[in-house]
Structure formats: C-alpha cells, structure tokens
C-alpha cells in the first residue's frame, strides 16, 4: 500500500465510501468488498484521519443488476463503481482514493445514470444514502420531523391531511389510505391495531424489502403517524422470514426508536402510547392477504376469511385494525412533512404520488425504480429499463405479479395508474413488472403463474383450490402438445367462474394471467393447439430439432454440445440432426446463437 502517514490529512477527511449492503449487494459479495476497503484503508494508515462513515453501510439503491455498487465521494465529488469485487478494491484505493483519478473502466455507465435520473425518487431517495442501522443518520436527513409535526396536530387533522393528499394503498387494490384510517378511527372497539404488511410474496418483487433494508425508520414513522391518527396502541410488522436482513434492521430500528422515545409510552409528551412488534411469516404467499395475515398473527393457519366484516371493523383479535403496505406507510411521513399539496402534485388525477416497481425479466436494466404515477410503460421499459437485451422485440409486460395481467406491446403508450391497468385486465399489484420479449411463450408464462397460484392457494375455498389446479393442468397440457379444440373456451369459462366465486384476492385474481394472455395472444394458444407449434420456441414438446440450413451460420456449436452424436457438421457446411439418434435434450437449441434450430 502506497499510502503514507505524511499525506495531507485534510484531503482524506472528505472521503466517503458507500457500499451497497442490501440483499442483492450482499449476495454479490458486498460484505467482503466492504471489509476489504476498511482493512486496506486501515493498513494503509488512513485510519486516524477518516471517520467511521468512511465505510458506511447503506441500503439498496435499486440497480441490483450492477451490484456490487460502490460510491466513492472524494472531496465532494461522487463516482459510482459497478460490479466491484475484492480484486478491484486495491486499484480503486490506489488510483482513485490516493491518486485522485477514478478508474474509468469500472465506473457505472450512462444506464446507471438513466436508471436513477429518469424516475422520481421520493421514497427511495434515502435508500442507499443513509445508514439504515443508525437512527442518527435518518434524523440528520429530516427523519422523525414528520412524527413531531403530526403529534402536534389533532388526529383528525392528520387523517384529513392524508385524505387530501390522495394517497392510495400501494399493496395492490389501491384503497384510499386516508379513508381507511377514518373508517377505523370511527369504528367501535378498543384497542385498535395497525399492521404493516411486509409479506411481499410476488415472484420478482422486492420493493418492500428494499425500503425496509434501506430505510426502516420511514416505515416505523408511517406506523407511528397512522397509529396516532386513528388511535391504535400497538403495531405489528408482518414480514416474511425469508428477509433476514430486513428483519434484523427493523428490530434494530425499533430498539433505537424506543431509546429515542419515538416508541413507547407518552411519545413526544403527547400522552400517546404506541409500540411495535414483529411477526415473522412462515412462507405462505396467501398471508399477504390481510385477513389471512391477521389469522397468522393470531397463531392460526394463514387462511383468509370472508369480507365483510372488514378488518377496519373486525380485525386482529376481533378489534378494529388497519393493514397498510410498507410502501404506503413509508410515504406517510413524507406527506406529513412536505404537505398533501406537494404529494398530489405528482401523478395523475386519481393516482397520486410515485410508485416503486421491481423491473425484472427480459430487460437490460433490472432493478428497483420509482416513477411518478401516470408515466407510460414505454418510458419505463425503454428510457429506464433500456429495452430488451440483445435488442430483441419487446412483447409484453406482466404487472401485478401472479394476480395481474399481461399487457401487450400494442398498449405500450398507456399510462401506469390504478384505473388504466385495471381497465386493460391487469392491476397495479404490489409493483412487480416482468418484461417479456419475443422469446417468451405466453401460454408457458400463463402456465408458470397458474402453477404458482395453485401451489400457493390456501385450500380453503373450492374454486381456488380445485379450479386453479384444473386451469393449470389444462395449460400444462397445451404446452405439452396435448391441447385440444375447445380448450380455450374451457379456460375462459372456468377462469371467469373462479374469478367471481373465490373467497379472497388470490382466487379472484389468479386467472388474470390466463384471461389476459388469451385476450391479447390468442393466436399463440391456437398455434399450440391447432398447429402444434410454439411460436416463441419455448415449449419443448413442440421442438422438432431440425436445422434451418438457410439460417445456419455453420459455426458448429451445436455439434460440440450434442451428447448423443446425432449432429453431423463439417466446416462450411450447415449442421444436420439425425432424428433417430437425437435424445431431445435441447442442448443444441440452447447454444445456437442464430436460432437456426427449430
């Protein structure tokens, strides 16, 4: 290490290194990177001059595809590195921290900039900036000011303020939050409860996890304000046990908030008592449904019950209870602090504010984005997401997870808000956004989501328990080449019946992927059933394993991969597959860079 103790100390005092230690970052090895930074800086003799913040732990910044992301802020100038591993640490320290010249080839590219600058960061602003394990870091950036402000107001005024802001539940259904609080406030019964729903189970969604990992106090603050507004005396955070980092940080945050007097008895000398407990879920998707969640907290099997009566009247232990999503609650302090006018200035007429989406699937820039309501799908997919990888054709996007629907490319200019999504047969959902390109088979996609839904059904009501299973089986048959004439009509009528007769949100929405794919991609179903082919080439049953000599570039990759010696190939000659020897393993199909194998 070339650092000497004689180097001017003032220069290095302004050094700040931020390493992403969210679950995505940790999985990519950020802990080792962080340790190496502190070890090398220490052994380099910079120890005495730099403060603890030199290697500050920060939460998720959303762009997980480029992890490990490291910010180096040197003399006020910030540079962001992507794909940092332990091998890169020495050079960054040597050339950038000591030498003063950033390592250009490792810096994050323009897509990183676009990913963050094109959205509107309100909720995620602090995620990745503050230390989630230090309450002071949150307070420094204006944290708990909203709580202090709210406690000086009358509870009704707080509810009124939230109502005016137009905030709607971010869990999926979009019920106005202020109205929910008001209903609970007027409901008879005591004590009242507030529950934070952090049982984020949609495949590919990680908005709530990132918020809790990156800024746990914002959620606690939302709960405190809510509890004060409608008179709850205890809060529960129902969080999946699969989120160990988030749980640890939340526990720490609660402890710190208690120490600081934001939780406990007589908060801010306002005679308002409130405490928060954590309940870890046991891995049931359906526990994201509020009544199942309540049953789970009560110690029963996580099964939903019929509504009405709604939880605001009869919830946890039969008492009035408000269940709010993580994102909703994290938004509350911002609204209280900045005012409802500020909030309602963002978004559309009926959908206010911003929404966090988890952008995944066949898209270049995967990760967490925050955008104002009303933004078009096009802006999200192309401007922020960078389009499909390999410049493939964008085909559709699934919003709302397994409960949502599939939106085809023809609707790419539609605005993303509660009403528009519903109108088109999808839903906002909790914010998962799975992008599909032309290599995605829509029948197979519907089969995947139905498989998920039928596995995760709690088994209470018949239409969901057996109906979804039958839907799944028929879709599976179609993808396996066993489709028959009339299957589409069968799927449509069964799906419709499940939708209107199921007990909870899971069953009522689980047929959506089937209905929306049939609506927009019926030709693909027809191709599977009538022509026995899969247009996207995904369903293995339809693969013929023939080389299209016109497309074949004679590279010989398939020849090398074939385990059964079925492929003959010579230089400058297209490959040929001997179908008698072929074992249909699919290796050749996978490796062919030109999609010459059908």
């Amino acid at each position: 290490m070339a650092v000497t103790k004689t180097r001017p100390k003032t220069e290095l005092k302004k050094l700040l290194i931020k390493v992403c230690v969210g679950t995505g970052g940790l999985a990519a090895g950020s802990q080792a990177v962080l340790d190496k930074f502190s070890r090398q800086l220490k052994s380099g003799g910079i120890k005495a001059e730099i403060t603890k913040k030199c290697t500050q732990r920060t939460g998720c910044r959303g762009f997980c595809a480029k992890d490990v992301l490291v910010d180096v802020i040197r003399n006020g100038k910030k540079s962001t590195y992507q794909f940092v591993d332990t091998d890169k640490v020495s050079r960054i320290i040597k050339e950038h921290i000591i030498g003063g010249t950033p390592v250009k080839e490792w810096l994050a590219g323009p897509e990183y900039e676009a990913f963050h600058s094109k959205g509107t960061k309100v909720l995620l602003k602090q995620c990745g900036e503050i230390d989630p394990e230090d309450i002071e870091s949150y307070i420094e950036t204006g944290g708990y000011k909203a709580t202090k402000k709210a406690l000086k107001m009358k509870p009704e005024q707080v509810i009124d303020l939230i109502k005016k802001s137009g905030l709607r539940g971010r869990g999926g259904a979009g019920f106005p939050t202020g109205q929910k609080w008001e209903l609970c406030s007027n409901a008879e019964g005591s004590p009242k409860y507030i529950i934070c729903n952090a049982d984020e189970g949609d495949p590919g969604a990680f908005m709530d996890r990132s918020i809790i990992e990156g800024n746990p106090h914002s959620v606690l603050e939302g709960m405190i304000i809510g509890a004060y507004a409608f008179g709850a005396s205890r809060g529960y955070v129902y969080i999946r046990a699969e989120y160990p980092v988030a749980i640890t940080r939340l526990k720490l945050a609660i402890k710190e908030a208690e120490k600081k007097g934001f939780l406990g008895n007589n908060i801010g000398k306002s005679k308002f008592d409130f405490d928060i407990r954590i309940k870890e879920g046991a891995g049931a998707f359906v526990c994201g449904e509020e009544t199942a969640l309540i049953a789970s907290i009560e110690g029963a099997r996580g099964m939903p019950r019929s509504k009405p009566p709604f939880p605001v009247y009869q919830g946890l232990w039969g008492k009035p209870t408000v269940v709010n999503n993580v994102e909703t609650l994290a938004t509350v302090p911002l609204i209280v602090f900045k005012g409802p006018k500020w909030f309602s200035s963002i978004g559309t007429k009926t959908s206010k504010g911003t929404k966090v989406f988890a952008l995944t699937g066949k898209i270049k820039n995967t990760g967490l984005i925050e955008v104002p309501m009303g933004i078009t799908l096009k802006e999200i997919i192309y401007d922020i997401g960078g389009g499909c990888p390999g410049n493939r054709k964008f085909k559709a996007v699934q919003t709302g997870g397994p409960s949502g629907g599939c939106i085809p490319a023809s609707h790419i200019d539609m605005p993303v808000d509660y009403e528009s999504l519903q109108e088109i047969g999808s839903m906002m959902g909790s914010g998962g956004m799975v992008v599909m390109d032309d290599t995605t088979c829509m029948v197979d996609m519907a089969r995947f989501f139905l498989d998920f839904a039928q596995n995760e059904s709690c088994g209470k009501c018949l239409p969901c328990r057996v109906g979804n299973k039958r839907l799944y089986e028929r879709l599976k048959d179609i993808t396996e080449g066993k489709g028959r004439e009339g299957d589409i009509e069968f799927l449509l009528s069964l799906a419709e019946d499940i939708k209107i007769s199921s007990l909870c949100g899971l069953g009522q929405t689980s047929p959506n992927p089937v209905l929306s794919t049939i609506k927009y991609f019926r030709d693909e179903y027809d191709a599977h059933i009538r022509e026995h082919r899969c247009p996207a080439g995904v369903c293995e049953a339809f693969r013929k394993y023939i080389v299209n000599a016109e497309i074949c570039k004679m590279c010989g990759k398939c020849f090398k991969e074939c385990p059964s010696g079925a492929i003959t190939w010579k230089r400058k000659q297209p490959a040929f597959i001997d179908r008698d020897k072929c074992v249909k393993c699919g290796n050749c199909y996978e490796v062919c860079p030109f999609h010459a194998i059908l």
Partner: protein
Amino acid sequence: MSKGKIKIKINGKKISCSEGDTILNAANRAGIKIPTLCHDYRLEPYGSCRFCSVEIKGMARLLPACTTPAADNMDISTDSETVQRIRTRLVSLMLSNHPNDCMRCEADGDCSLQDLAYEYNVDGSEYGGERWDLPIRQANPFITYEPNKCIVCGRCVRICNEVVMAGTIDFTGRGFNTVPDTAFRTARTLSNCEFCGQCVSTCPTGALTDKKGRGKGRAKDFKKVRTTCGYCGTGCNFFLNVKDNKVVKVTSDYNGPVNHGNLCIKGRYGYDFIHSPDRITKPLIKKGKKFVEASWDEALGLVAKKFSEILKKHGPDSCGAFSSSRCTNEENFLLAKFVRTVFKTNNVDNCARV
C-alpha cells in the same frame, strides 16, 4: 351489533330482517332455500364451499350468503343464471376430485354431494387431471377416514376446534393438496382424540364414517329410533339406527333440544352393551350360592323387606343412599326425597358432588 330492522329484497320478495343477520338466515326465515355445504348451524359461518353464493345487485362478484351480513336495501338473487352456473361449476369441480364410487360408499343415501350431483346432473369428468389417491385411515377403533372422499369443507376441523375444542385435526398441506388430518398424520389415539365422533356427525360425505357400523347397512336400510342417552344426566337425544332388530350405529338428532346433535364418545359409540350376551335383562336374587331369575315385584319386595328390617333393628341413620351423576336431576331429587321421607335420614349423597 344493534338490532335495528332493515329491509332487503330476495328474488324480488321484500323481507324485513335484523341488522347483522346473515343473508342465509334472513332467507331461511323467509322460507327461501339456499343450498349449503360447508355450513352447519352448530358452527361459525365459514364460507369455504361457496355453494351458498348469491348475486347482489351492484356487486361484480358473488358473495356467500352464510357469511355476508344483510345490509339495508340489498337486492339479492339466489337463483339467477349466474348463481346456477356457479353452483353447477362447483359441484362438477368437487366431483373432479372425488372417487365417485357411490355404489359401495358407506354414505350412499346420506351424502350431500351425492344429492347435489343428482340435482345438478354433473359428474366432473370434463376436467380430467389429478385425483387424490390417499390411503384409507382407520388405525383406531371408532373412526374411518377416507381422505379421497373429502371435499375439504372444513366442517370436521371446525367442529373439533370450535365445539369440542379438542384440536385433533386441522388442515394440512396447501393448494390442491389441502386435506384435514391429524398433526403429522399420526394415527388417532386417546392422547390426541376424544373419539366423540363429532367430525363424523358433521361430515357431509362418506369421508368420515363410524368404523363399527361399516358394512352393516346404509341410510335406506335403517329404522331410526329416537331415544335419550342413558349415560349421564344431560339427557342428549340421538337416533339408534336399527337394522334387523339390531342397533348398528348411533346418529345425531340435530333437533335434540339439549344437545343439538352434539354427542360424546359414550353416547355415540358406547352402545355395544345393547346386544351383549353378558347383559342382565331380568332381576336376579341370590339363593344359596346361585343367582336365580326373579320378577320385578319379587325383587323389589325383597329389597323393601330387608331395608325395613335394618331400619327397625338399627335405626334410620344405619341406612343411606348414594346417587349417580348418570341420573337426571329429577331422579336425584326423587332419591333424596325417598331417603329423607322413607329412611327418615339425611344420609344421601351423589358422586357428582366432589
């Protein structure tokens, strides 16, 4: 809930009911029949079978009549096309995972599913797909469980947890594989089950049946004799199911004013003594070293004579009586009266006093 009166409309008929009443109760009171399957009046409304789903004007979805409280001015339809379509759908879905072997089923003729299949004329064959193939469970003396016939209405689970509070069974598995069972699917023993047979009494199909009565006759073969349980003073009513002058099994009398169909292990399964060859059916008097059959008059006369002798020789306090908690209150009162007026002593007690 306040008890204000509200007005609703069912199938165009104007009905007045109490606030907080479920649609099902309001309809039943008005004489409108809504078919149910997972509903048992002994249990809390559950809404799992969706069979009682009704159409409410202004609602996109159907709502179950058993759990939905009636609200003022609700316009309800219980037999619209959609409602009928959904009911047909539900029965066929149920049958798509059912052995459909009524010919040799224990519950033939006493099965709600069979009735519905007949009424809606479906067999569930259009779905194909997986059917359960689970082993029959009968490693216990009283209850046979054939999970393949279970329609997962949850009545057994709820009666075990809500009424008996034994917690023997609950739902296990998830999704299509959800099925009521004991914890870790262990055999029922007296340590985890009371063998009250309440689950059997509420099962709408042949999934749960009385093991002792299996193969000895079905609903149509029985003469049902209503009687009162002789085991304790509660006075539960039930039906003795008699075939060829033999008691084959006990079934619940849901109209029993005391027990509303509920029974304990003794009432439901303790009937072996009826046809036991060891049973004493006539009074016996010991003459020499042998018991000899006697008439009631003879036997009671002997008892009266002996008591009179003892009382005369040793005084009233030399005698006493100890009554049983199996007796009714009236019987206990009579005994106390008898002891005090005939024996002229206060030496009377009952085993239930402890």
